[in-house]
């Protein structure tokens, strides 16, 4: 680390930062590559999958690995590998959509609360506290159980579950930032509050939030798997990782592989996202820079 860096860290571009990070933190780079491979595999599932994920072959049910079925077959004789690829699509889509939604909404609420202060702050943050008071899974479970299990409601449930965390993370730096000179200046220029919040405060906290988003995306994917596992997932035959684990559970003693492979897929996704998140956090945290 050079002296220039230490004195003037903000000078470096994001690209440079990332490169530096990649060199320094090999594990996170590995996580990032793993995540990209998983995402690509999910996107190109129709090209990669050797079988139709919905095609049943009752006579070949519950088979272990074979050249024809790389990861074996499930209760209905469907190809587990193909189902995992397609399942990843749904699981990632649900996980990432809900994280992005929660990030946007949560940050908006957090910034408004922090910037405005007073009763608005109290109302917003007490609502967030209320949501946080429930164990996360219970909130999600409640929403899906009441509204019914489908794609939109599951996304909604996960969004609501992790939204308060984003609100909290966004609020604290906002309170600090609003006292800074550049915000004062913007105010003096007569900019509207909305413009100040969106263009001057938000960009300054986005880094921190994105780091947490990558960690919570992993969490969101896990919630999706939980909900599907207890039967509150997307309706069959659509494969999701959680439903696949659940389907195999009935045969956990005699054909454990039916649950294990999709379980392993969840592990890989969550692990890769966590590695990426950890790396990003280290990169942004000034205390860990040296």
């Amino acid at each position: 680390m050079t002296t220039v860096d230490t004195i003037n860290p903000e000078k470096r571009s994001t690209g440079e930062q990332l490169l530096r990070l990649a060199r320094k933190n090999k594990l996170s780079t590995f996580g990032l590559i793993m995540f990209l491979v998983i995402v690509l595999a999910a996107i190109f599932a129709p090209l990669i999958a050797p079988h139709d994920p919905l095609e049943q072959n009752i006579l070949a049910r519950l088979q272990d690995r074979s050249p024809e079925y790389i990861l074996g077959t499930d209760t209905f004789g469907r190809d587990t590998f193909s189902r995992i690829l397609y399942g990843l699509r749904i699981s990632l889509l649900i996980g990432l959509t809900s994280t992005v939604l929660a990030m946007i909404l949560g940050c908006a609420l957090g910034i408004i609360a922090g910037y405005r202060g007073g009763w608005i702050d109290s109302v917003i943050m007490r609502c967030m506290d209320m949501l946080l008071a429930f164990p996360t899974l219970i909130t999600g479970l409640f929403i899906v159980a009441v509204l019914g299990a489908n794609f939109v409601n599951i996304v909604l449930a996960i969004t609501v579950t992790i939204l308060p965390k984003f609100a909290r993370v966004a609020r604290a730096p906002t309170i600090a930032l609003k006292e800074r000179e550049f915000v004062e200046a913007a105010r003096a220029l007569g900019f509207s509050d909305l413009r100040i919040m969106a263009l001057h405060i938000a960009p300054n906290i986005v880094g921190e939030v994105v780091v947490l988003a990558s960690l919570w995306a992993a969490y969101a994917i896990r919630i999706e798997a939980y909900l599907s596992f207890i039967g509150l997932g997307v309706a069959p035959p659509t494969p999701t990782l959680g439903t696949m684990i659940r389907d195999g559970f009935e045969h956990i003693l005699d054909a454990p592989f039916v649950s294990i492979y999709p379980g392993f897929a969840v592990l890989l996704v969550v692990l890769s996202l966590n590695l990426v998140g950890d790396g990003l956090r280290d990169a942004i945290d000034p205390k860990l820079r040296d």
Partner: protein
Amino acid sequence: MNVIKTTMAAALMATSALSLPTIAQAQDLTMAIAAKSAGQLDPHVSTKTQDKIVFAMIFNGLVRFAPGSMSSDAIEPDLAESWTSSEDGLVWEFKLREGVQFHGGYGELTAEDVVYSLTRAGNPDLSSVSSDYKAFKSVEAIDDYTVRITLSEVIPSVLGVVANYHGGNMVSKKAGEELGESFQTNPVGTGPFAFSQLAEGQFVELVAHEDYFRGAPEIDKITARYMSAASARDLAFQTGELHMIAGSREDRWVDKTSGGDATVAVFEPGELRTLHVNTSKPPFDDIRVRQALAHAINREELIAFAGSKVARGNEAPVPDGYIGHESDITFLPYDPEKAKALLAEAGYPDGVEIPIAITELASLFGPMQVIQAQLSKVGMNIKFDVMEHSAWHKAIRDDVSPLVLYGAARFPVADTYLTQFYHSDSIVKTPTAVTNFSHCDMADDQIVAARSEPNKEMQQQYWSEAQQILVDNVCSVPLFELLQVWALAPEIDLGYELGGSLSLGPVITEKTTLSE
């Protein structure tokens, strides 16, 4: 060292000497039922699978199916020693056994208890099987040990409805009146085992009824645990924690479990899985769409899904082995091309989407997913609304699902099945509703005519006709029958040959023993 060894040996011997007699004494049988909890422990209220097996150990009927059998030919005296019927079959007199004691000091069973029980079973406000007793004009106690039943019309099997099954189970009048509603949680009967306690969602405990009229039972206590997860039952059975478990009805499971020294019993009755089709609402109000449905379903594949040891095909609306079952039915065979053509002809050339309600219970949800895949090949796209089992039972009775996959075993006479599933009186959401999900009424005449037809051949002919009409109209698609599967530890000796059991499980009788 030697001293220590001797002491240890002595200590060991002492403990084994102490524990041996207790092991020999404790004839505690533990079993697991495939359910989350008990339904209602009142034989006139509940017809749920998890309760039937418990009732069979607590209660007696006037007559009974010999243990291990469910054939009407094997009906033998139970609480009644003998019976006579008038020539026209309308008046029946039962002579009761003397000295039969109820559990828990509720005294001797007399004709009053029988009158009370049968009246209770026929009371539509309380009983879920009251329709079985519609033809009972009166039930009277002639003296303490004689009961006379007068019918308003001839019914297919009088002995059937006074046997140890559903409404035929005899309860104590005194207990029933004293306990009222709470009889459901404290049932009192005359059977070999008395109700002791119920831990909701965990287990029900029965203890030996020492005064049982066939002799005191060998087993002292039965603990029947409620375990809905098949893998949990398997694990507990393998570790020797349970003597008897409800099995998974598939060949894989049977092969795996019967590998060791445990016995897997596969027995009657076959529960017929039927796909009921709501003929009153689109798209299935069009017979061509129903025919397309029938042509799209591949029975062979469904049987293969469970396996041929535990499943067998059936094309008739009445299960195999029931009196009146017609095995020679003309049905629509598997023909996906024809199904597509019919669907196009009916105005759905691009396929049709069908939202249906389905239970999360694997034994129905599994086959339904196979059917879903089969139907999707001809353009019928089933969208599932997956529900908790009891919520689903409610939903299908609210007529929300155009297709209902239902599995049931009933009293083994065609009339019960045909009446409950295909007679217009039983149509769901009507005051007299039972389980007619198809809204079919075209076989009403034959069903009613068969009921009071004294000539057996004519009766069979009516029943056959009714079944053919229902198949021709595709009121339902009868698919396959699943037999009962239980695993028994080698130390159990039931004391009878298990060929069939209307209570859907191996009944523990006074003769059942547990060896070391």
